[in-house]
Protein backbone atom coordinates (compact mmCIF):
# COMPACT_ATOMS: atom_id res chain seq x y z
CA UNK A 1 0.00 0.00 0.00
CA UNK A 2 2.85 2.36 0.82
CA UNK A 3 4.12 2.07 -2.73
CA UNK A 4 0.76 2.84 -4.27
CA UNK A 5 0.23 5.73 -1.86
CA UNK A 6 3.49 7.37 -2.87
CA UNK A 7 2.22 8.01 -6.40
CA UNK A 8 -0.31 10.76 -7.02
CA UNK A 9 -3.68 9.25 -7.95
CA UNK A 10 -4.35 9.39 -11.70
CA UNK A 11 -7.74 10.96 -10.95
CA UNK A 12 -8.65 12.89 -7.85
CA UNK A 13 -12.09 14.44 -7.53
CA UNK A 14 -13.37 16.44 -4.59
CA UNK A 15 -16.95 17.69 -4.47
CA UNK A 16 -17.35 17.82 -8.26
CA UNK A 17 -20.76 18.97 -9.46
CA UNK A 18 -21.97 19.19 -13.07
CA UNK A 19 -25.14 19.10 -15.11
CA UNK A 20 -27.04 20.26 -18.16
CA UNK A 21 -28.65 23.69 -18.05
CA UNK A 22 -30.86 23.91 -14.99
CA UNK A 23 -30.65 20.21 -14.32
CA UNK A 24 -27.89 19.26 -11.93
CA UNK A 25 -26.76 15.67 -12.37
CA UNK A 26 -23.62 15.29 -10.27
CA UNK A 27 -24.06 16.31 -6.63
CA UNK A 28 -20.52 16.34 -5.27
CA UNK A 29 -18.40 13.47 -6.53
CA UNK A 30 -15.43 12.43 -4.41
CA UNK A 31 -13.21 9.76 -5.88
CA UNK A 32 -9.57 8.74 -6.16
CA UNK A 33 -8.55 6.46 -8.99
CA UNK A 34 -5.17 4.77 -8.60
CA UNK A 35 -2.73 4.64 -11.47
CA UNK A 36 -2.05 1.27 -13.06
CA UNK A 37 -5.41 -0.20 -12.14
CA UNK A 38 -8.62 -1.08 -13.89
CA UNK A 39 -11.37 0.80 -12.09
CA UNK A 40 -15.05 0.16 -12.64
CA UNK A 41 -17.88 2.65 -12.32
CA UNK A 42 -21.24 0.97 -11.83
CA UNK A 43 -24.74 2.15 -11.11
CA UNK A 44 -28.27 1.98 -12.46
CA UNK A 45 -29.55 3.95 -15.45
CA UNK A 46 -29.63 7.67 -14.77
CA UNK A 47 -27.16 7.47 -11.89
CA UNK A 48 -24.89 9.96 -13.67
CA UNK A 49 -22.13 7.65 -14.94
CA UNK A 50 -22.02 9.03 -18.47
CA UNK A 51 -22.31 12.60 -17.17
CA UNK A 52 -19.30 11.94 -14.95
CA UNK A 53 -17.35 10.60 -17.94
CA UNK A 54 -18.27 13.63 -20.02
CA UNK A 55 -17.18 15.91 -17.20
CA UNK A 56 -13.89 14.07 -16.82
CA UNK A 57 -13.12 14.45 -20.55
CA UNK A 58 -14.04 18.14 -20.53
CA UNK A 59 -17.14 17.87 -22.73
CA UNK A 60 -19.10 19.26 -19.77
CA UNK A 61 -17.66 21.94 -17.48
CA UNK A 62 -17.00 21.28 -13.80
CA UNK A 63 -19.38 23.62 -11.94
CA UNK A 64 -17.79 23.37 -8.52
CA UNK A 65 -15.24 21.22 -6.73
CA UNK A 66 -11.80 20.23 -7.94
CA UNK A 67 -10.70 17.77 -10.58
CA UNK A 68 -7.03 16.82 -10.66
CA UNK A 69 -5.27 14.26 -12.83
CA UNK A 70 -1.80 13.06 -11.82
CA UNK A 71 -1.47 16.19 -9.69
CA UNK A 72 -2.48 18.66 -12.44
CA UNK A 73 -5.58 20.79 -11.83
CA UNK A 74 -8.04 20.26 -14.68
CA UNK A 75 -11.14 21.79 -13.07
CA UNK A 76 -11.41 24.51 -15.70
CA UNK A 77 -9.58 22.76 -18.55
CA UNK A 78 -10.88 22.41 -22.11
CA UNK A 79 -11.35 19.01 -23.76
CA UNK A 80 -8.10 19.43 -25.72
CA UNK A 81 -6.03 20.14 -22.61
CA UNK A 82 -7.45 17.11 -20.85
CA UNK A 83 -6.74 14.94 -23.87
CA UNK A 84 -3.17 16.25 -23.97
CA UNK A 85 -2.85 15.28 -20.29
CA UNK A 86 -3.54 11.68 -21.38
CA UNK A 87 -7.17 11.35 -20.22
CA UNK A 88 -8.91 9.72 -23.18
CA UNK A 89 -12.64 9.06 -23.51
CA UNK A 90 -14.07 6.20 -25.59
CA UNK A 91 -17.69 7.36 -25.79
CA UNK A 92 -20.86 5.37 -25.45
CA UNK A 93 -22.16 4.29 -28.84
CA UNK A 94 -18.70 4.29 -30.46
CA UNK A 95 -19.01 7.59 -32.43
CA UNK A 96 -16.78 6.79 -35.37
CA UNK A 97 -16.29 8.79 -38.56
CA UNK A 98 -18.53 6.60 -40.69
CA UNK A 99 -17.27 7.50 -44.14
CA UNK A 100 -13.57 7.27 -43.21
CA UNK A 101 -11.55 4.08 -43.38
CA UNK A 102 -10.75 2.16 -40.21
CA UNK A 103 -7.12 3.22 -40.46
CA UNK A 104 -8.02 6.91 -40.86
CA UNK A 105 -10.36 6.65 -37.88
CA UNK A 106 -7.49 5.29 -35.82
CA UNK A 107 -5.14 8.01 -37.07
CA UNK A 108 -7.72 10.63 -36.06
CA UNK A 109 -7.02 9.54 -32.49
CA UNK A 110 -3.52 10.96 -32.97
CA UNK A 111 -4.94 14.27 -34.24
CA UNK A 112 -3.44 16.34 -31.42
CA UNK A 113 -0.12 14.53 -31.27
CA UNK A 114 2.90 16.32 -32.62
CA UNK A 115 5.14 13.26 -32.34
CA UNK A 116 6.92 11.93 -35.40
CA UNK A 117 5.31 9.56 -37.86
CA UNK A 118 7.47 6.77 -36.51
CA UNK A 119 5.98 6.98 -33.06
CA UNK A 120 2.41 7.17 -34.36
CA UNK A 121 3.13 4.29 -36.76
CA UNK A 122 4.36 2.17 -33.85
CA UNK A 123 1.17 2.86 -31.93
CA UNK A 124 -0.88 1.94 -34.99
CA UNK A 125 0.96 -1.38 -35.20
CA UNK A 126 0.24 -1.93 -31.54
CA UNK A 127 -3.51 -1.37 -32.06
CA UNK A 128 -3.48 -3.79 -35.01
CA UNK A 129 -1.59 -6.28 -32.86
CA UNK A 130 -4.22 -6.09 -30.09
CA UNK A 131 -7.14 -6.11 -32.55
CA UNK A 132 -6.05 -8.16 -35.60
CA UNK A 133 -9.62 -7.84 -36.94
CA UNK A 134 -9.04 -4.10 -37.45
CA UNK A 135 -5.96 -4.82 -39.55
CA UNK A 136 -8.02 -7.05 -41.84
CA UNK A 137 -10.57 -4.28 -42.24
CA UNK A 138 -8.24 -1.27 -42.24
CA UNK A 139 -9.28 0.05 -45.68
CA UNK A 140 -13.00 -0.46 -45.08
CA UNK A 141 -15.31 2.45 -44.19
CA UNK A 142 -15.97 2.42 -40.44
CA UNK A 143 -19.74 2.47 -40.96
CA UNK A 144 -19.56 -0.99 -42.55
CA UNK A 145 -18.06 -2.63 -39.45
CA UNK A 146 -20.07 -4.82 -37.09
CA UNK A 147 -20.90 -3.48 -33.63
CA UNK A 148 -18.04 -5.33 -31.97
CA UNK A 149 -15.54 -4.20 -34.58
CA UNK A 150 -16.75 -0.64 -34.17
CA UNK A 151 -16.15 -0.89 -30.45
CA UNK A 152 -12.63 -2.21 -31.15
CA UNK A 153 -12.08 0.67 -33.54
CA UNK A 154 -13.27 3.18 -30.93
CA UNK A 155 -10.97 1.71 -28.29
CA UNK A 156 -8.15 1.62 -30.83
CA UNK A 157 -8.73 5.28 -31.66
CA UNK A 158 -8.55 6.02 -27.94
CA UNK A 159 -5.23 4.20 -27.74
CA UNK A 160 -3.89 6.30 -30.61
CA UNK A 161 -4.21 9.35 -28.36
CA UNK A 162 -1.45 7.87 -26.17
CA UNK A 163 -3.58 7.60 -23.03
CA UNK A 164 -2.38 7.30 -19.47
CA UNK A 165 -6.02 6.76 -18.49
CA UNK A 166 -8.46 5.21 -20.95
CA UNK A 167 -12.11 5.81 -20.02
CA UNK A 168 -14.54 3.45 -21.72
CA UNK A 169 -18.27 4.13 -21.56
CA UNK A 170 -20.52 1.04 -21.91
CA UNK A 171 -17.99 -1.49 -23.11
CA UNK A 172 -20.40 -4.36 -23.70
CA UNK A 173 -23.49 -2.47 -24.91
CA UNK A 174 -25.11 -4.44 -27.72
CA UNK A 175 -22.26 -6.91 -28.13
CA UNK A 176 -22.35 -10.70 -28.09
CA UNK A 177 -20.87 -12.50 -25.03
CA UNK A 178 -18.05 -13.89 -27.16
CA UNK A 179 -17.02 -10.42 -28.33
CA UNK A 180 -17.22 -9.06 -24.81
CA UNK A 181 -14.85 -11.81 -23.74
CA UNK A 182 -12.38 -10.79 -26.46
CA UNK A 183 -12.59 -7.14 -25.45
CA UNK A 184 -12.11 -8.01 -21.79
CA UNK A 185 -8.98 -9.97 -22.68
CA UNK A 186 -7.70 -7.04 -24.73
CA UNK A 187 -8.28 -4.64 -21.85
CA UNK A 188 -6.41 -6.93 -19.44
CA UNK A 189 -3.49 -6.98 -21.87
CA UNK A 190 -3.52 -3.18 -22.21
CA UNK A 191 -3.59 -2.78 -18.46
CA UNK A 192 -0.66 -5.15 -18.11
CA UNK A 193 1.20 -2.87 -20.55
CA UNK A 194 0.68 0.03 -18.14
CA UNK A 195 -2.51 1.78 -19.31
CA UNK A 196 -4.88 2.68 -16.48
CA UNK A 197 -8.51 2.06 -17.34
CA UNK A 198 -11.77 3.53 -16.04
CA UNK A 199 -14.72 1.47 -17.16
CA UNK A 200 -18.44 2.21 -17.13
CA UNK A 201 -20.32 -1.03 -17.46
CA UNK A 202 -23.94 -2.10 -17.12
CA UNK A 203 -23.00 -5.73 -16.58
CA UNK A 204 -21.94 -5.59 -12.94
CA UNK A 205 -20.50 -9.10 -12.93
CA UNK A 206 -18.16 -8.35 -15.82
CA UNK A 207 -17.26 -4.98 -14.35
CA UNK A 208 -16.36 -6.29 -10.90
CA UNK A 209 -14.63 -9.35 -12.30
CA UNK A 210 -12.39 -7.30 -14.62
CA UNK A 211 -11.56 -4.41 -12.30
CA UNK A 212 -9.30 -4.04 -9.28
CA UNK A 213 -11.47 -1.50 -7.53
CA UNK A 214 -14.88 -0.01 -8.17
CA UNK A 215 -17.15 2.91 -7.41
CA UNK A 216 -20.91 2.63 -7.16
CA UNK A 217 -22.97 5.65 -8.22
CA UNK A 218 -26.54 6.50 -7.39
CA UNK A 219 -28.48 9.76 -7.85
CA UNK A 220 -25.37 11.65 -8.87
CA UNK A 221 -23.27 10.62 -5.89
CA UNK A 222 -20.69 7.96 -5.15
CA UNK A 223 -22.47 5.75 -2.64
CA UNK A 224 -19.91 2.98 -2.23
CA UNK A 225 -16.38 2.18 -3.21
CA UNK A 226 -13.78 -0.44 -2.55
CA UNK A 227 -11.94 -3.48 -3.82
CA UNK A 228 -13.97 -5.13 -6.56
CA UNK A 229 -13.82 -8.66 -5.20
CA UNK A 230 -15.15 -7.44 -1.87
CA UNK A 231 -17.94 -5.43 -3.50
CA UNK A 232 -18.91 -8.55 -5.44
CA UNK A 233 -19.77 -10.27 -2.18
CA UNK A 234 -21.30 -7.19 -0.56
CA UNK A 235 -24.94 -8.11 0.20
CA UNK A 236 -26.26 -4.65 -0.67
CA UNK A 237 -24.55 -4.66 -4.06
CA UNK A 238 -25.74 -8.19 -4.74
CA UNK A 239 -29.24 -7.18 -3.86
CA UNK A 240 -29.34 -3.93 -5.81
CA UNK A 241 -27.35 -4.73 -8.95
CA UNK A 242 -27.01 -8.48 -9.32
CA UNK A 243 -30.61 -9.36 -8.64
CA UNK A 244 -29.59 -12.02 -6.14
CA UNK A 245 -32.09 -12.16 -3.32
CA UNK A 246 -30.53 -13.07 0.00
CA UNK A 247 -32.52 -14.95 2.61
Amino acid at each position, binding site marked *: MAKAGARAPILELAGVTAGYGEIQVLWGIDMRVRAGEITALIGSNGAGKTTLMRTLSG*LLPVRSGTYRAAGIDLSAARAETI*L*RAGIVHV*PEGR*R*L*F*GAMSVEDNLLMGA*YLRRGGRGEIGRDLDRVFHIFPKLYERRTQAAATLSGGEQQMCAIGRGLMSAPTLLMIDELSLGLSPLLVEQLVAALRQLNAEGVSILLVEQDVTIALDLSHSAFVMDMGRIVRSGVSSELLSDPIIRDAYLGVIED
Partner: protein
Amino acid sequence: MKRSDLILIVLVLCLAALPLAGGAYTLRLGTMAAMSCILALSWNVIGGFAGYPSFAAAAFFGLGAYTTGILLGYKVPLWLSLPIAAGLSFALAGLLGAVLLRLRGHYFAIASLALVEVLREIVNHATDLTGGGMGLNIPVTAGTDIMADARFFFYAMWLVLLVTTIAVIAVSSSRLGFGLSCIRQNEAASQMVGLNTTLYKSIAFGLSACFVGAAGGVYAAWVHYIDPTDVFDILYSVKPIVMALIGGLGSSLGVMIGALLYLVLEEVVWRNYIQFHSAVLGALIIALLLFLPHGLTSLRGGLLLRRLRGA
Protein backbone atom coordinates in the same frame (compact mmCIF):
# COMPACT_ATOMS: atom_id res chain seq x y z
CA MET B 1 -4.83 19.87 -55.96
CA LYS B 2 -7.49 17.45 -57.16
CA ARG B 3 -8.47 17.22 -60.80
CA SER B 4 -11.95 18.59 -60.11
CA ASP B 5 -10.39 21.68 -58.51
CA LEU B 6 -8.30 22.22 -61.62
CA ILE B 7 -11.39 22.00 -63.81
CA LEU B 8 -13.09 24.48 -61.50
CA ILE B 9 -10.27 27.02 -61.88
CA VAL B 10 -10.24 26.59 -65.65
CA LEU B 11 -14.01 27.08 -65.74
CA VAL B 12 -13.73 30.32 -63.79
CA LEU B 13 -10.89 31.55 -66.02
CA CYS B 14 -12.92 30.77 -69.15
CA LEU B 15 -15.76 32.88 -67.79
CA ALA B 16 -13.42 35.88 -67.92
CA ALA B 17 -13.49 35.75 -71.74
CA LEU B 18 -17.23 36.47 -71.81
CA PRO B 19 -16.91 40.18 -72.74
CA LEU B 20 -15.36 39.08 -76.04
CA ALA B 21 -18.54 37.25 -76.90
CA GLY B 22 -21.44 39.55 -76.35
CA GLY B 23 -23.16 42.77 -75.55
CA ALA B 24 -24.62 44.34 -72.44
CA TYR B 25 -27.27 41.62 -72.01
CA THR B 26 -24.69 38.82 -72.06
CA LEU B 27 -22.51 40.71 -69.61
CA ARG B 28 -25.45 41.28 -67.30
CA LEU B 29 -26.17 37.56 -67.40
CA GLY B 30 -22.48 36.83 -66.81
CA THR B 31 -22.40 39.12 -63.79
CA MET B 32 -25.46 37.39 -62.35
CA ALA B 33 -23.83 34.02 -63.06
CA ALA B 34 -20.64 35.01 -61.25
CA MET B 35 -22.71 36.26 -58.32
CA SER B 36 -24.67 33.03 -58.11
CA CYS B 37 -21.47 31.00 -58.24
CA ILE B 38 -20.02 33.05 -55.36
CA LEU B 39 -23.16 32.47 -53.29
CA ALA B 40 -23.30 28.75 -54.06
CA LEU B 41 -19.57 28.12 -53.48
CA SER B 42 -19.78 30.05 -50.20
CA TRP B 43 -22.81 28.14 -49.01
CA ASN B 44 -20.98 24.90 -49.73
CA VAL B 45 -18.30 25.76 -47.14
CA ILE B 46 -20.76 25.72 -44.23
CA GLY B 47 -23.54 23.58 -45.74
CA GLY B 48 -21.49 21.10 -47.77
CA PHE B 49 -18.17 20.79 -45.96
CA ALA B 50 -19.37 21.20 -42.36
CA GLY B 51 -22.94 19.95 -42.86
CA TYR B 52 -24.72 22.93 -41.31
CA PRO B 53 -27.64 24.03 -43.55
CA SER B 54 -27.39 27.82 -43.38
CA PHE B 55 -30.05 30.21 -44.63
CA ALA B 56 -27.99 33.24 -43.64
CA ALA B 57 -26.57 34.16 -47.06
CA ALA B 58 -29.15 36.92 -47.61
CA ALA B 59 -28.15 38.48 -44.28
CA PHE B 60 -24.53 38.86 -45.33
CA PHE B 61 -25.44 39.79 -48.89
CA GLY B 62 -27.48 42.67 -47.50
CA LEU B 63 -24.85 43.56 -44.94
CA GLY B 64 -22.19 43.74 -47.66
CA ALA B 65 -24.47 45.71 -49.95
CA TYR B 66 -25.32 48.31 -47.29
CA THR B 67 -21.74 48.55 -45.98
CA THR B 68 -20.44 49.21 -49.48
CA GLY B 69 -23.31 51.54 -50.34
CA ILE B 70 -22.80 53.66 -47.25
CA LEU B 71 -19.01 53.75 -47.65
CA LEU B 72 -19.33 54.77 -51.31
CA GLY B 73 -21.63 57.56 -50.13
CA TYR B 74 -18.79 58.78 -47.92
CA LYS B 75 -16.49 58.81 -50.97
CA VAL B 76 -14.54 55.70 -49.94
CA PRO B 77 -13.28 54.07 -53.17
CA LEU B 78 -14.86 50.78 -54.27
CA TRP B 79 -11.63 48.79 -54.08
CA LEU B 80 -11.42 49.67 -50.38
CA SER B 81 -15.14 49.37 -49.61
CA LEU B 82 -15.39 45.77 -50.82
CA PRO B 83 -12.66 44.35 -48.52
CA ILE B 84 -14.22 46.26 -45.62
CA ALA B 85 -17.65 44.75 -46.44
CA ALA B 86 -16.07 41.29 -46.67
CA GLY B 87 -14.14 41.76 -43.42
CA LEU B 88 -17.22 42.98 -41.57
CA SER B 89 -19.26 40.00 -42.84
CA PHE B 90 -16.49 37.61 -41.78
CA ALA B 91 -16.24 39.12 -38.31
CA LEU B 92 -19.99 39.22 -37.70
CA ALA B 93 -20.50 35.69 -39.01
CA GLY B 94 -17.57 34.38 -36.99
CA LEU B 95 -18.87 35.93 -33.78
CA LEU B 96 -22.49 34.91 -34.33
CA GLY B 97 -21.34 31.51 -35.53
CA ALA B 98 -19.74 30.73 -32.19
CA VAL B 99 -23.24 31.02 -30.70
CA LEU B 100 -25.56 29.92 -33.55
CA LEU B 101 -23.51 26.86 -34.49
CA ARG B 102 -24.32 25.29 -31.14
CA LEU B 103 -27.68 24.56 -32.75
CA ARG B 104 -27.84 21.71 -35.20
CA GLY B 105 -29.92 20.61 -38.18
CA HIS B 106 -33.31 22.31 -38.47
CA TYR B 107 -32.70 24.45 -35.42
CA PHE B 108 -29.62 26.00 -36.96
CA ALA B 109 -31.46 26.51 -40.25
CA ILE B 110 -34.25 28.43 -38.50
CA ALA B 111 -31.80 30.52 -36.45
CA SER B 112 -29.82 31.46 -39.56
CA LEU B 113 -33.08 32.38 -41.27
CA ALA B 114 -33.93 34.65 -38.34
CA LEU B 115 -30.59 36.40 -38.81
CA VAL B 116 -31.80 37.70 -42.19
CA GLU B 117 -34.97 39.14 -40.62
CA VAL B 118 -33.06 40.73 -37.74
CA LEU B 119 -30.55 42.47 -40.01
CA ARG B 120 -33.31 43.64 -42.32
CA GLU B 121 -35.24 45.15 -39.43
CA ILE B 122 -32.11 46.88 -38.11
CA VAL B 123 -31.43 48.39 -41.54
CA ASN B 124 -35.11 49.35 -41.83
CA HIS B 125 -34.98 51.31 -38.60
CA ALA B 126 -31.52 52.89 -38.86
CA THR B 127 -33.01 55.51 -41.16
CA ASP B 128 -30.26 58.10 -40.63
CA LEU B 129 -27.56 55.79 -41.89
CA THR B 130 -29.36 53.55 -44.36
CA GLY B 131 -32.35 55.56 -45.52
CA GLY B 132 -34.60 52.88 -44.03
CA GLY B 133 -37.47 51.71 -46.19
CA MET B 134 -36.86 54.55 -48.66
CA GLY B 135 -33.70 52.79 -49.77
CA LEU B 136 -30.24 54.07 -50.42
CA ASN B 137 -29.00 55.87 -53.51
CA ILE B 138 -25.43 54.99 -54.34
CA PRO B 139 -23.13 57.26 -56.34
CA VAL B 140 -22.10 56.04 -59.77
CA THR B 141 -18.63 54.52 -59.61
CA ALA B 142 -17.89 53.45 -63.17
CA GLY B 143 -18.25 55.56 -66.33
CA THR B 144 -21.60 56.53 -67.80
CA ASP B 145 -21.04 54.52 -70.98
CA ILE B 146 -23.35 51.46 -70.87
CA MET B 147 -20.84 48.96 -72.25
CA ALA B 148 -17.94 50.24 -70.10
CA ASP B 149 -20.21 50.08 -67.06
CA ALA B 150 -21.33 46.52 -67.82
CA ARG B 151 -17.76 45.40 -68.44
CA PHE B 152 -16.48 47.02 -65.24
CA PHE B 153 -19.04 45.36 -62.98
CA PHE B 154 -18.71 42.03 -64.74
CA TYR B 155 -15.00 42.01 -63.99
CA ALA B 156 -15.53 43.24 -60.44
CA MET B 157 -17.91 40.35 -59.75
CA TRP B 158 -15.65 37.93 -61.61
CA LEU B 159 -12.69 38.98 -59.48
CA VAL B 160 -14.66 38.25 -56.31
CA LEU B 161 -15.57 34.86 -57.84
CA LEU B 162 -11.91 34.13 -58.58
CA VAL B 163 -10.89 34.94 -55.00
CA THR B 164 -13.80 32.85 -53.69
CA THR B 165 -12.79 29.89 -55.86
CA ILE B 166 -9.18 30.02 -54.73
CA ALA B 167 -10.22 30.31 -51.09
CA VAL B 168 -12.67 27.43 -51.35
CA ILE B 169 -10.08 25.17 -52.98
CA ALA B 170 -7.52 26.15 -50.35
CA VAL B 171 -9.99 25.32 -47.58
CA SER B 172 -10.98 21.96 -49.05
CA SER B 173 -7.38 20.78 -49.25
CA SER B 174 -6.31 22.15 -45.87
CA ARG B 175 -6.42 20.98 -42.27
CA LEU B 176 -9.49 23.17 -41.85
CA GLY B 177 -11.34 21.38 -44.65
CA PHE B 178 -10.39 18.02 -43.23
CA GLY B 179 -11.60 19.10 -39.79
CA LEU B 180 -14.91 20.30 -41.25
CA SER B 181 -15.46 16.97 -42.96
CA CYS B 182 -14.81 15.27 -39.60
CA ILE B 183 -17.40 17.56 -37.98
CA ARG B 184 -19.91 16.68 -40.69
CA GLN B 185 -19.36 12.96 -40.16
CA ASN B 186 -19.45 12.98 -36.38
CA GLU B 187 -19.18 16.13 -34.37
CA ALA B 188 -19.03 14.41 -30.96
CA ALA B 189 -16.16 12.21 -32.11
CA SER B 190 -14.33 15.24 -33.53
CA GLN B 191 -14.55 16.89 -30.14
CA MET B 192 -13.25 13.76 -28.48
CA VAL B 193 -10.14 13.53 -30.58
CA GLY B 194 -9.38 17.12 -29.58
CA LEU B 195 -10.59 19.08 -32.59
CA ASN B 196 -11.67 22.61 -31.62
CA THR B 197 -15.07 22.30 -33.28
CA THR B 198 -16.39 25.72 -32.23
CA LEU B 199 -13.40 27.48 -33.77
CA TYR B 200 -13.54 25.46 -37.00
CA LYS B 201 -17.27 25.96 -37.43
CA SER B 202 -16.98 29.70 -36.75
CA ILE B 203 -14.22 30.10 -39.32
CA ALA B 204 -16.28 28.12 -41.84
CA PHE B 205 -19.33 30.30 -41.19
CA GLY B 206 -17.16 33.41 -41.48
CA LEU B 207 -15.72 32.23 -44.79
CA SER B 208 -19.17 31.39 -46.09
CA ALA B 209 -20.23 34.97 -45.26
CA CYS B 210 -17.31 37.15 -46.34
CA PHE B 211 -17.41 36.54 -50.11
CA VAL B 212 -21.19 36.83 -50.07
CA GLY B 213 -20.69 40.22 -48.39
CA ALA B 214 -18.27 41.28 -51.13
CA ALA B 215 -20.71 40.08 -53.81
CA GLY B 216 -23.43 42.15 -52.15
CA GLY B 217 -21.08 45.12 -52.27
CA VAL B 218 -20.44 44.78 -56.00
CA TYR B 219 -24.17 44.35 -56.54
CA ALA B 220 -24.96 47.56 -54.65
CA ALA B 221 -22.41 49.59 -56.61
CA TRP B 222 -23.71 48.04 -59.83
CA VAL B 223 -27.43 48.79 -59.40
CA HIS B 224 -26.90 52.24 -57.76
CA TYR B 225 -29.97 51.84 -55.56
CA ILE B 226 -30.75 49.31 -52.84
CA ASP B 227 -33.54 48.90 -50.34
CA PRO B 228 -33.99 46.37 -47.51
CA THR B 229 -36.50 44.11 -49.28
CA ASP B 230 -34.23 43.93 -52.32
CA VAL B 231 -30.89 42.94 -50.76
CA PHE B 232 -32.22 41.05 -47.72
CA ASP B 233 -34.34 38.94 -50.08
CA ILE B 234 -34.61 35.40 -48.71
CA LEU B 235 -34.13 34.08 -52.27
CA TYR B 236 -30.43 34.94 -51.91
CA SER B 237 -30.38 32.32 -49.16
CA VAL B 238 -32.51 29.71 -50.87
CA LYS B 239 -31.15 29.77 -54.41
CA PRO B 240 -27.55 28.85 -53.46
CA ILE B 241 -28.89 25.82 -51.58
CA VAL B 242 -30.90 24.69 -54.59
CA MET B 243 -27.85 25.20 -56.81
CA ALA B 244 -25.67 23.17 -54.46
CA LEU B 245 -28.27 20.41 -54.31
CA ILE B 246 -28.54 20.29 -58.10
CA GLY B 247 -24.77 20.13 -58.46
CA GLY B 248 -24.00 17.77 -55.61
CA LEU B 249 -23.22 18.60 -52.00
CA GLY B 250 -19.65 18.99 -50.86
CA SER B 251 -17.98 19.14 -54.27
CA SER B 252 -17.00 22.68 -55.25
CA LEU B 253 -16.99 21.88 -58.97
CA GLY B 254 -20.41 20.25 -58.69
CA VAL B 255 -21.81 23.23 -56.85
CA MET B 256 -20.51 25.65 -59.49
CA ILE B 257 -21.94 23.58 -62.34
CA GLY B 258 -25.20 23.41 -60.40
CA ALA B 259 -25.25 27.20 -60.16
CA LEU B 260 -24.67 27.62 -63.89
CA LEU B 261 -27.27 25.01 -64.80
CA TYR B 262 -29.78 26.63 -62.48
CA LEU B 263 -29.27 30.00 -64.17
CA VAL B 264 -29.68 28.50 -67.63
CA LEU B 265 -32.88 26.80 -66.50
CA GLU B 266 -34.14 29.99 -64.92
CA GLU B 267 -33.42 32.05 -68.02
CA VAL B 268 -34.93 29.57 -70.46
CA VAL B 269 -38.04 29.03 -68.35
CA TRP B 270 -38.44 32.77 -67.81
CA ARG B 271 -38.37 33.46 -71.51
CA ASN B 272 -40.73 30.70 -72.53
CA TYR B 273 -43.25 30.68 -69.71
CA ILE B 274 -43.43 34.28 -68.64
CA GLN B 275 -46.89 33.82 -67.04
CA PHE B 276 -46.04 30.95 -64.72
CA HIS B 277 -42.24 30.67 -64.85
CA SER B 278 -41.86 30.09 -61.09
CA ALA B 279 -44.14 27.07 -61.20
CA VAL B 280 -42.32 25.51 -64.15
CA LEU B 281 -38.94 26.15 -62.55
CA GLY B 282 -40.14 24.65 -59.27
CA ALA B 283 -41.43 21.53 -61.00
CA LEU B 284 -38.12 21.16 -62.87
CA ILE B 285 -36.11 21.44 -59.64
CA ILE B 286 -38.29 18.89 -57.88
CA ALA B 287 -37.91 16.51 -60.81
CA LEU B 288 -34.14 16.96 -60.83
CA LEU B 289 -33.81 16.31 -57.11
CA LEU B 290 -36.19 13.36 -57.27
CA PHE B 291 -34.28 11.57 -60.00
CA LEU B 292 -30.79 12.78 -59.12
CA PRO B 293 -30.80 13.10 -55.32
CA HIS B 294 -27.03 13.30 -55.08
CA GLY B 295 -26.73 15.95 -57.73
CA LEU B 296 -24.98 16.12 -61.05
CA THR B 297 -21.66 14.94 -59.60
CA SER B 298 -23.21 11.53 -58.98
CA LEU B 299 -23.36 11.13 -62.75
CA ARG B 300 -20.05 9.55 -63.61
CA GLY B 301 -18.94 9.30 -67.21
CA GLY B 302 -17.99 5.66 -66.86
CA LEU B 303 -21.24 4.69 -65.23
CA LEU B 304 -23.21 6.40 -67.96
CA LEU B 305 -21.23 4.56 -70.65
CA ARG B 306 -21.78 1.22 -68.96
CA ARG B 307 -25.49 1.87 -68.75
CA LEU B 308 -25.63 2.78 -72.41
CA ARG B 309 -23.74 -0.36 -73.35
CA GLY B 310 -25.98 -2.47 -71.15
CA ALA B 311 -29.07 -1.07 -72.81
